[in-house]
């Protein structure tokens, strides 16, 4: 078995799955940025309201979630055969399938495919997989210009910024900041540009139109691939996806291996779950589905790159593999009280929020993202919001059990457990703690690491008597 290779995590030094600093430190900056917090609160509150309303319209939302969850579990359990079937169907329909074990290999495959077309520019549809592997950097290093065509990605690219949300990468920017970025970095922009959203959208339309028509290669991700038909799909809003998937001669789609669905009929579940959970729409404006190559219509060269990059390692953990069920709707981000206050950049990875806190550490190995499983109060809002019912809180607890712990914390936890396993010792420790408080300062100022608590909260007064002592006294005749 081992000669075929054991599951491995995503390599270091490429892509965007690891941050530069631990979550609490990265969050500090975001928490101090009141504009960012206002933008995030406004956006997440808006989307929660919209999503809640359209979900309430469906009488069978819970049944759809149950089906979606079960279909994904089924996919994971027979992933090899589904991938082989997908490869066969895509190939039969005129596509070419490539397999990329990690980010480096995927970047090399795509770069080589673009080079062979002779094009020095590619147009891109927003795709998490290509962000994950750092494809834009790899293309630039090879002298190829990647142009992001999704409005939010364009805002991020022009602002020399990083994406902070799965669905709306520029969620941290409000309209006036977007206007400033366009005025500064969009060639040929009307200097009289206002911050009215339709005006900003129209500016992007004008700016990209010529690029769409003159670029011969597009790179996309995929929301799903159907094993029994070889059909791929991209769900979008603006029409930039349609442009990229229709106009160029060559289309290169990079897709994580977990995105495959068994049958065409399974789409009836996911096309209901995804738009309502993600943008809060009954249906997103545009969805394009294609099967290989259609003579005379759309790209005549189609390449599908199937990406592992740590996914097989996620799959290897029975208690963690359902993180691969994620359909990238970002509902969990939108309901997360931690995300709402810290924003996506704090997570360091292209996958922020609750799903990122379970997915990123599994893709990289927990040691490389050790602070992320703790970036949650375990409030459980993400689990309720997830359209495919990923039990994120339980998975966070599971991952916390796997991360390397600081030695001092480990010693303290072991000591606490030992005391708590001896009721008499425990009772005397309760009294000793009380004594310590009486001689110490009242209410404020604990030493680190507990000082974080007393920075914003008082400690409770120690009671005169524990409940245990009260009960013992009461029992005495």
């Amino acid at each position, binding site marked *: *078995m081992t000669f*075929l*290779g*054991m*599951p491995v995590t995503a390599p270091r030094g490429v892509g965007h799955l690891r941050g530069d600093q631990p979550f609490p430190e990265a969050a500090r900056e975001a928490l101090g940025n009141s504009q960012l917090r206002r933008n995030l609160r406004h*956006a*997440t509150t*808006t989307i929660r309201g919209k999503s809640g309303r359209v979900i309430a319209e469906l*009488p069978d939302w819970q*049944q*759809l979630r149950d*089906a979606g969850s*079960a279909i994904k579990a*089924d996919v*994971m*359990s027979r992933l*090899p055969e589904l*991938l*082989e079937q997908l490869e066969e169907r895509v190939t039969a329909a005129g596509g070419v399938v490539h*397999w990329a*074990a990690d980010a480096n290999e995927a970047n090399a495959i795509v770069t080589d495919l673009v080079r062979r077309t002779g094009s020095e520019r590619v147009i891109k549809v927003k795709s998490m997989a290509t962000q994950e592997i750092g494809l834009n950097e790899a293309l630039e290093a090879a002298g190829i210009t990647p142009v992001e065509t999704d*409005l939010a990605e364009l805002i991020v690219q022009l602002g020399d910024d990083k994406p902070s949300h799965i669905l*709306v990468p520029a969620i941290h920017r*409000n309209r006036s900041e977007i206007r400033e970025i366009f005025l500064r970095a969009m060639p040929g922009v009307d200097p009289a540009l206002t911050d009215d959203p*339709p005006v900003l*959208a*129209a500016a992007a339309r004008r700016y990209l139109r010529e690029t769409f028509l003159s670029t011969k290669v597009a790179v996309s991700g995929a929301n799903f691939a*159907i094993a029994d038909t070889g*059909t791929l799909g991209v769900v979008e*809003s*603006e*029409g*930039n996806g*349609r*442009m990229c998937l*229709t*106009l160029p001669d060559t289309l290169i789609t990079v897709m994580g291996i977990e995105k495959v669905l068994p049958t065409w009929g399974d789409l*009836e*579940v996911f*096309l*209901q779950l995804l*738009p309502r959970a993600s943008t809060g*729409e*009954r*249906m997103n*404006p*545009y*969805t*394009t*589905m*294609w*099967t290989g190559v*259609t003579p*005379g*219509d*759309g790209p005549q060269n189609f390449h599908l790159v199937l990406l592992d990059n740590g996914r*097989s*390692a996620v*799959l290897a953990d*029975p208690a963690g593999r359902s993180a691969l069920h994620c359909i990238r709707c970002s509902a969990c981000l939108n309901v997360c009280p931690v995300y709402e206050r810290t924003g996506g950049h704090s997570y360091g990875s292209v996958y922020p929020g609750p799903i990122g806190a379970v997915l990123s550490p599994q893709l990289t190995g927990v040691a490389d993202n050790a602070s992320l499983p703790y970036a949650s109060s375990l409030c459980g809002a993400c689990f309720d919001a997830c359209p495919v019912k990923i039990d994120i809180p339980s998975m966070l607890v599971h991952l916390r059990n796997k991360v390397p712990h600081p030695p001092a914390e480990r010693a303290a936890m072991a000591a606490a457990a030992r005391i708590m396993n001896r009721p008499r010792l425990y009772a005397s420790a309760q009294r000793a703690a009380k004594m310590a408080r009486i001689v110490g300062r009242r209410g404020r100022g604990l030493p680190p690491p507990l000082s974080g608590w007393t920075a914003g909260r008082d400690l409770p007064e120690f009671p005169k008597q524990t409940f245990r002592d009260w009960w013992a006294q009461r029992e005495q005749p």
Partner: protein
Amino acid sequence: MSSRDLILGRVRAALRDAPVVAAVPREYRPAGTNRADLEVLVDRLVDYKAEVYRVTSAEVAATAARLAGEGGAVLVPPGLPGEWRPEGAYADENLTPDRIAEAGAVLTAAAVAVAETGTIVLDASPDQGRRIITLLPDVHVCVLRPDQVVASVPDAIARLEPGRPLTWISGPSATSDIELNRVEGVHGPRHLHVLILTD
């Protein structure tokens, strides 16, 4: 070893515990649960800023010409029913993108419409044409026969042919990227007009 074999080997190794999964519960409303309700479709189309007209077959051509306005001629796919074709319309016979983009409007039929979501699906049949022709013009006029309207997404999936290029359209081009509010009009057609046939 090829990367293909490497990845498949890793995935098989990852599944060594041979997870047993229960059958997929499909308790949701399947295809055929509800009859399509045209009023629901109209409500949802209008909600997402499409404009709806009820016309007879004989009125399609004039309506499309009017919607194209002064902006330019009407572009039609080669297989559009002759009766619908407006005076002065031009057909897509491998036209260049520039010729397509200069149309005042494109007039097509559709494959299926989903009432519950306000969605029209094109499947590139001869009366709908290549995907590019409904993408570059700024106005898309789409003709629906009432028998093409289904109630829900499962009904549409059951009717569609997956091997064809499919475009699902719900309202005009839009974005939610600025403060998560839906704004119409980005790269795709900024105007979607749906003509529902009454005969």
